[in-house]
């Protein structure tokens, strides 16, 4: 994991997310601004990371941790409250006009969780892949070349025979096949970055690996970068070079995936890893003690957001918000336990 200020060949750096915050205002309370003042849900609070060409970063967290909100800010579905998203050095929030937005969106594509909801049930597979081609004017040539592109894309994502699949409707495909269509659609505009929001969580277990292997293969072949959003930390280890663990809108730990799994530093990461069913060690049962759930953070007081559930909680955790500190090269932790180690 690279901090923004670390040296890196500029062309290699695709996305640079700096101190990203996204707050959602709450309605309700007293009218005319009386009472406690504006109330905001802090869905994402001060998240920074860089995504290099060909890199896969996993955003891991439970529901309510803010991982999907980050993806939505990155593609411009939500404006950021503060902080910056730089794409090749350009501030995404400053993009103006249809042309600039189109260009950005053709570089950064998204794949959604639900392979049933994200495809139009009354349109063929071919239609889904032609739409981005025509919207982004990728096929200036005639209709036949579009057809070739569709077939080629379907082959790339492993749907065979592509000519047959192109004519089918979403309901004629299995969940895994539909998710492959989603990837073909995203690839149609030849993006640099794919934001994949829980792409395998609704699929049957036997076909999940196929999709992850497809993603890994596309990374190698096309030098794609991914932001892989998941609640499944084991799949993050499988796919991603680096992993960011989110809790209540904040990055609690970010590190190369292998190091994170082998040496989890933050108590929340440790909790998350201990809760994963693991058949290889599972027969010796281990108990966890972590009552409670992710809080909804509304106008937070200073302090660590995990303090109420943390087995190592100290007085300072309730009064001072911990900062992300580097505990070893590329390994950042937001926890007072490692305060003394901060150089």
């Amino acid at each position, binding site marked *: 994991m690279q901090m923004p200020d670390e040296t890196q060949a500029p062309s290699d750096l695709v996305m640079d997310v700096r101190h990203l915050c996204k707050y959602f205002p709450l309605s309700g309370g007293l009218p005319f601004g009386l009472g406690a003042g504006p109330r905001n849900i802090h869905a994402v609070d001060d998240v920074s990371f860089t995504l290099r060409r060909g890199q896969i970063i996993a955003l891991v967290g439970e529901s309510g941790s803010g991982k999907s909100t980050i993806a939505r800010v990155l593609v411009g579905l939500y404006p950021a409250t503060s902080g910056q998203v730089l794409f090749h050095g350009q501030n995404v929030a400053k993009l103006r006009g249809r042309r600039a937005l189109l260009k950005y969106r053709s570089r950064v594509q998204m794949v959604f969780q639900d392979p049933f909801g994200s495809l139009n049930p009354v349109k063929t597979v071919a239609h889904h892949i032609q739409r981005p081609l025509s919207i982004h004017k990728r096929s200036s040539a005639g209709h036949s070349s579009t057809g070739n592109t569709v077939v080629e894309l379907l082959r790339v994502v492993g749907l065979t025979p592509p000519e047959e699949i192109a004519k089918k409707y979403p309901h004629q495909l299995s969940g895994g096949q539909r998710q492959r269509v989603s990837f073909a659609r995203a690839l149609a505009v030849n993006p640099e970055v794919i934001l994949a929001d829980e792409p395998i969580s609704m699929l049957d277990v036997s076909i999940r690996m196929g999709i992850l292997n497809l993603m890994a293969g596309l990374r190698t072949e096309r030098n794609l970068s991914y932001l892989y959003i998941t609640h499944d930390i084991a799949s993050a280890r499988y796919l991603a070079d680096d992993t960011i663990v989110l809790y209540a809108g904040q990055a609690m730990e970010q590190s190369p995936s292998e190091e994170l*799994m082998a040496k989890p530093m933050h108590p929340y990461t440790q909790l998350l890893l201990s809760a*994963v069913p693991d058949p290889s060690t599972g027969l010796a049962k281990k108990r966890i003690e972590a009552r409670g759930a992710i809080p909804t953070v509304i106008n937070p007081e200073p302090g660590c957001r995990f303090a109420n559930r943390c087995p190592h909680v100290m007085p300072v955790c309730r009064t001072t918000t911990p900062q992300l500190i580097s505990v070893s090269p590329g390994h950042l932790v937001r926890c007072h336990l490692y305060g003394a180690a901060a150089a």
Partner: protein
Amino acid sequence: MVGTQAKQPAEPEMLGWDNRDLLQVRDLTVDFVTPRGLARAVDHVSMTVAAGEVFGLAGESGCGKSTVANAIMRLIKSPGLISGGQLLYKGRDIMALDDEKLRRYRWSEVSMVFQSAMNALNPVMSLGDQLCDAIRAHEPVTKKQAMERAAQLFDLVGIASARLKSFPHELSGGMRQRSVIAMALALKPSLVIMDEPTTALDVVVQRDILQQIEDLQAKLGFSILFITHDLSLLVEFSTRLAIMYAGHIVELAPASELFGNPKHPYTVGLMNSFPSIKGEKRQLQGIPGTLPDLVNTPPGCRFAPRCSHVMGRCVVADPLLREVSPGHWVECYLYDEVGVQ
């Protein structure tokens, strides 16, 4: 009956059934009438749940695991029908129960926890009222007595009894699932069927609830039929488990045996579908291909089109579920020394 096969069902005695068995499923077959013909969702499934046991039933969507659960509760409705087999609960035939006996059988003998707690609860009734309803439908107690029982039940699953006044939308997903579990335990059933009880929950909450189910089971001694697609979780949690594929039980074994020594190619494939957080990082393949069509299924093993060990006879006739070592049953020709035409 469509698609009847020259299949010899395993003899009940061979499966080691005895009086300690709470629930016996014998050759259960469930069909669904579809415009294209009959879809055989469950095909000659036999299994037993012993008293005090956690029996796991694992499989992917469409494999028939939830249909088995619904059949045990006699909840199969048109266009589905139980077209063959026997369901015995404490030796009594469930299929023969009349309406009144069925009403008493459901919930006070066998209760069920569904996957989506939000859908299982009535959104416009407080949790206390819903629990009282369930209790008073079966036992002649006053509202006040029922409410006291409800408070005890909430205490049992670790929810403050003040929450009895709450409505479902006021609780977190984990608390809703706990209250559904409380409701399932309200009438002290001998068997609780849990159909994906933790699938919609976050992993930490899931672990917490599983621990609680385990504690309750140890304390109250009920049996659990635990249905999930998450094999890694079942291996940890169950005593014995069965793997279902396309309506068949393809493998049945004690959990540790199944994990340490999986036999059926499908089970092996499933085991290779879960990345681990520990140990050597290795390339996982999953299982290529998709589930077969359950209408007009071709003869032979239903896993044959996806199987890497497929042989000539696999596509000719169905293999039988055979005991390959004590308590370990596999439905695959690879482990079939005798050979069946």
